[in-house]
């Protein structure tokens, strides 16, 4: 069989530069990021249904299993390892306070979804929060504690 196709691309991850790197054409972004040690990005289904791999691409939440690494050419990416600004530290404190995670596998995606909710600066009801996170699967908590944590974040910001 012929050698696998690859593509030469550049992007940044949490400000770190990846210049002229070679990625297999078929590799999705989550696999590439994980191979580079950004293992906070988790894979739960590889079809966009669980939300565990959600990261930030040019300021927006995307499923990194539904983006090819090659498509990230020229973009700025942020993974959970780079969620260290003041707002996200507050979010993490609220997640901790409400025990808004158990095993932690969904947390990176859940935090990214929370980040996008907060950046939209809308006051949301609990039902609306549930709607916003309804693409992120959590088997452990039953979601209530996550809604509690996000609600507190929204109240702090607004």
């Amino acid at each position, binding site marked *: 069989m*012929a050698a*696998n*196709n690859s*593509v030469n691309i550049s992007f940044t991850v949490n400000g770190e530069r990846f210049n002229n790197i070679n990625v*297999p*054409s*078929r*590799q*999705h972004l989550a*696999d590439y990021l994980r191979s580079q040690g950004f293992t906070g990005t988790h894979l739960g289904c*590889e*079809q*966009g249904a669980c*939300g565990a791999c*959600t990261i930030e691409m040019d300021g*927006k*939440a*995307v*499923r990194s*299993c*539904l*983006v*090819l690494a*090659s*498509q990230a*050419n*020229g973009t700025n990416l942020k993974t959970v390892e780079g969620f260290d600004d003041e707002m996200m530290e507050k979010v993490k404190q609220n997640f901790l306070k409400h025990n808004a995670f158990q095993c932690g596998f969904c947390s990176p995606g859940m935090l*990214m*979804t929370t980040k*996008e909710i907060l950046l939209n600066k809308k006051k949301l009801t609990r039902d609306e929060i549930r*709607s*916003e996170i*309804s*693409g*992120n699967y959590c088997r452990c908590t039953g979601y209530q504690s996550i809604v509690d944590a996000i609600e507190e974040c929204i109240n702090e910001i607004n």
Partner: protein
Amino acid sequence: MKAADFSYHEAVNLQDAINIKAQDDEAVILAGGQSLLPALNMRLSSPTCLIDISKISGLNEIKIEEHTLFIGALATHSDVMSNKTVKDNMPYMIDILKMVAHPAIRNKGTHGGSIAYGDPAAELPALAVATNAEIIVSGQNGDRSINAKDFYLGLFETTINQDEIVVGIKYPLLKQGQNIVFDEVCRRHGDYAMAGLIANVMGSKNDIKDLKLVFFATGDKPDVADKTAELYLDNGYDYDKLKNSLSSEIDFAGDLNSSSEMKLHLATVLIKKVLSKLEI
């Protein structure tokens, strides 16, 4: 699972993409990738080559053009939802898009991709048919405009040719007294529906002058139910009669979450639910 190997080509412009597509039967267009990537990852699809059109500039434009709202193929669902022109001229579009999957998918999934993919359970193809939209495609012989009702042939099957790419959709602006109302029934929020209905209505709740009913997640493509609409205009909401009519007009195809019988029932009650949303 991991995708099978393919080559990846980032198209520099529309012509570039059209040329490659014309040359390679098995090449597939990659726009937002939110339907394609799951299929690749699960090896349900193994194209030889992906043509990434997402970096082509100018294909995500949203503008008013001759009494229509034009949405460029590469506009993401999120782009459309936050666009002021859409909000001012086609506000119902935003509410329909809220039913499409989840925020992170909408950030990447494109308007043109959803239209071109032709998933019978998706909202946008049904909306295009219900609003009498024109789908603009570009190919080796230039552009052509296809009415949405002629665009969808069957299960994931459209009239688009191998060398053609959807570049935009033109939605006629609503006339005075015209309303788009819709609803869907899902097991879970954001899932594909068990059945959905988009109604294009001329008139008010108690005085409907013209009615077009387009169902989704019912058959193999957006299902137009003109006879049933007529029956409604003549008789109002009569569950049994409407159900009979739908049953003869649409070839309901059951899926994992709802049998064809269930879909027929839901389609019938959706007529009541959806039209009750009209203002008096």
